[in-house]
């Protein structure tokens, strides 16, 4: 009950006209940078810190919250419209979302993404307000072995993005794993596969790979076959708005996405990518329209988008409750807090309740503001697709390279973008699925590092993976998820023979 009063008070703080203005500036800025690949909310907050220094703490933290949520929206808008995920967590959205946009269903895709983000953001922010202390106790119980087991679950579900040939799907995945090896080995500090190029020491940037494979690769592919099939984009075919059918197909994925996103986001090493993949593959398995997946299924947009936003709120759980910055953006928000001599952590709730609840309330307001701003814009956004094709693709490439230049102004990075573009083109031409490459790059290094940490703690005893109840459960789920499809297939065959 106490929390309710505190939250209500927080809302009155956040609703002050000045703070509303800060929230508005925040969501606008966040959306603007979110659409740019490579420039995320973290970088924006970092760059704005010195500017906001003069503002009062409440106002600027509210603005940061707006940037944070706004960035999520922006990232998915470009993923849907121009197949350029603004950040790695929007990759799953691009898979189905862009297909929908090309089929003239960009409007519903954007709408389900916006409403799904709102629903997930709201539920997750409620979770943040009321469950943070409990959740965080559970989250710190997650050891390296448990993270490794979680990665195993994620790896198993990746097969949902494989397409129809397991060999080609696995090939893509292993190319991604190979790319994940590049750089300094986290546990011994040695360089692997860097060939003496210092820029490679930090490894392959996920956004560079994703933008190269998705955006540049697609531009090359479409350009190369223009003479065969002129790509005609109709911005709107059917309804601009979500139909009753769309609503019916969206609401469950929204909720399921939230359930994936919030808890995993709250884990100190959980991140936003894994829940989006999990949500995507869950929706693919549960859908009544499996034939639409890969061609623009609305569930494939609704689920991952909700997961993405819910995980953003989840990340704030360890930040506010423990002072643990578990993502780049959270680290910047921590720096923002510290700028005013505030230390997030167990004491912040007790010492400065008005700030914490003000922040949580402003997350609600930022979320609502984004919905109100974005829904009317859907019509405008899809008009982007009506831009003549040469300019549209030229713009996409300018976008893609600009993000890379701004984030890491190096020739090596730009060359990688080009090489990944060519790779993406070849993979499209020879019908290799693209998403597993990015998945491999994201999951591979985490899985490796966590397994090695676990084994270092256990002095090399692999039984640690089974002794931890969390890890044992997750590994069990992974095994079931791996075997179940085969068993079901066998069962079906059996049944057919019966008939």
């Amino acid at each position, binding site marked *: 009950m106490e929390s309710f009063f505190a939250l209500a008070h927080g809302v009155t703080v956040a609703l002050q006209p000045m703070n509303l203005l800060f929230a508005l500036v925040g969501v606008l800025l966040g959306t603007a940078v979110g659409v740019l690949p490579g420039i995320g909310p973290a970088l*924006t907050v970092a*760059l*704005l810190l010195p500017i906001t220094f003069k503002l009062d703490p409440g106002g600027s933290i509210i603005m940061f919250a707006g940037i944070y949520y706004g960035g999520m929206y922006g990232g998915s808008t470009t993923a849907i419209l121009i197949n350029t995920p603004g950040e790695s967590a929007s990759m799953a959205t691009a898979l189905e979302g862009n297909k929908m946009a090309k089929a003239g269903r960009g409007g519903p895709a954007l709408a389900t993404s916006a409403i799904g983000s709102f629903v997930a953001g709201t539920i997750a922010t409620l979770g943040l307000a009321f469950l943070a202390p409990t959740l965080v106790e559970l989250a710190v119980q997650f050891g390296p072995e448990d993270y490794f087991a979680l990665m195993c679950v994620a790896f198993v579900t990746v097969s949902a993005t494989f397409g129809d040939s397991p*060999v*080609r799907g*696995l*090939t893509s995945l*292993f*190319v991604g*794993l*190979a790319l994940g*090896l590049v750089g300094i*080995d986290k*546990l*011994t500090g*040695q360089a*692997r*596969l860097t060939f003496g190029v210092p820029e490679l020491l930090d490894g392959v940037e996920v956004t560079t790979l994703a933008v190269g494979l998705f955006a*540049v690769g697609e*531009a*090359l592919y479409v*350009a*190369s*076959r*223009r003479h*065969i099939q002129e790509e005609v984009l109709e911005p709107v075919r059917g309804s601009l708005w979500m139909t009753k059918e769309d609503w019916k197909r969206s609401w469950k994925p929204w909720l399921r996405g939230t359930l994936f996103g919030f808890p995993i986001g709250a884990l100190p090493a959980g991140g936003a990518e894994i829940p989006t993949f999990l949500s995507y593959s869950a929706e693919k398995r549960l859908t009544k329209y499996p034939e639409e997946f890969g061609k623009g299924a609305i569930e494939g947009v609704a689920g991952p988008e909700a997961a993405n936003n819910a995980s953003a709120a989840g990340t704030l759980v360890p930040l506010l409750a423990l002072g643990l910055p578990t993502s780049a953006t959270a680290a910047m928000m921590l720096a923002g807090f510290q700028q005013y001599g505030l230390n997030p952590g167990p004491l912040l709730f007790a010492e400065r309740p008005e700030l914490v609840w003000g922040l949580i309330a402003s997350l609600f307001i930022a979320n609502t503001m984004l919905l109100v701003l974005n829904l009317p814009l859907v019509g405008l956004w899809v008009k982007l697709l009506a831009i*003549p*094709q*040469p*300019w549209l*693709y*030229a*713009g996409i*490439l*300018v976008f893609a*390279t*600009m993000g890379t*230049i*701004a984030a890491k*102004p190096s*020739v090596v990075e*730009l060359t990688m*973008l*080009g090489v990944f*573009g*060519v790779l993406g*083109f070849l993979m499209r*031409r*020879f*019908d290799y699925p693209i998403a597993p490459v990015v998945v491999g790059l994201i999951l*591979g290094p985490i899985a*490796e590092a966590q*397994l*090695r940490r676990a*084994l*270092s*703690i*256990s*002095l*090399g005893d692999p039984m640690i993976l089974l002794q931890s109840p969390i890890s044992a459960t997750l590994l069990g789920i992974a095994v079931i998820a791996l075997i179940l499809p085969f068993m079901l297939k066998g069962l079906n065959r059996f049944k057919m023979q019966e008939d």
Partner: protein
Amino acid sequence: MTTPNPRRVDKPGLLIALALLVLAGLIWQDMSSLQLSSVYGLGPKAMPMVVSIGLAILAVGNAVSAFRGELPERESLRWTPILLIIGGLALLIAFVEFNVGFIPATAVLFACTSAAFGRRAFIIDLVIGLVAGLVIYLLFAKLLTLSLPMGPLERLIGA
């Protein structure tokens, strides 16, 4: 999936298999040159080994499907647009490397890509690209104080 000519060996498919094999070898070679190992638990060589072996197996798998001619059919393609886009990217990289500046680099990429998609108004597109580059530059370099590549044009604005 039905293939019209299942007996025909797919040459590009074999090339892909070969490329995977080369990649596997490269990873193996790099792995064996690692000097330091972890004191406890798994060392830095385990993962490269797994990936390398996996890639080698997949190379065989891909080769088998190439021999069976199982790869999906491909349509003819035109090289000019591809070269135009890659050329635009190469010019952009060169412009960044040789300090020609962000705005001209953006303009060239824009115009090249647009040409790749069949537009014949290179000069007009170049101007559009310049304006777009200028707007982006002002937004990022001035508003967010990001350090974008500087050339003569950018210095002129900066001064």
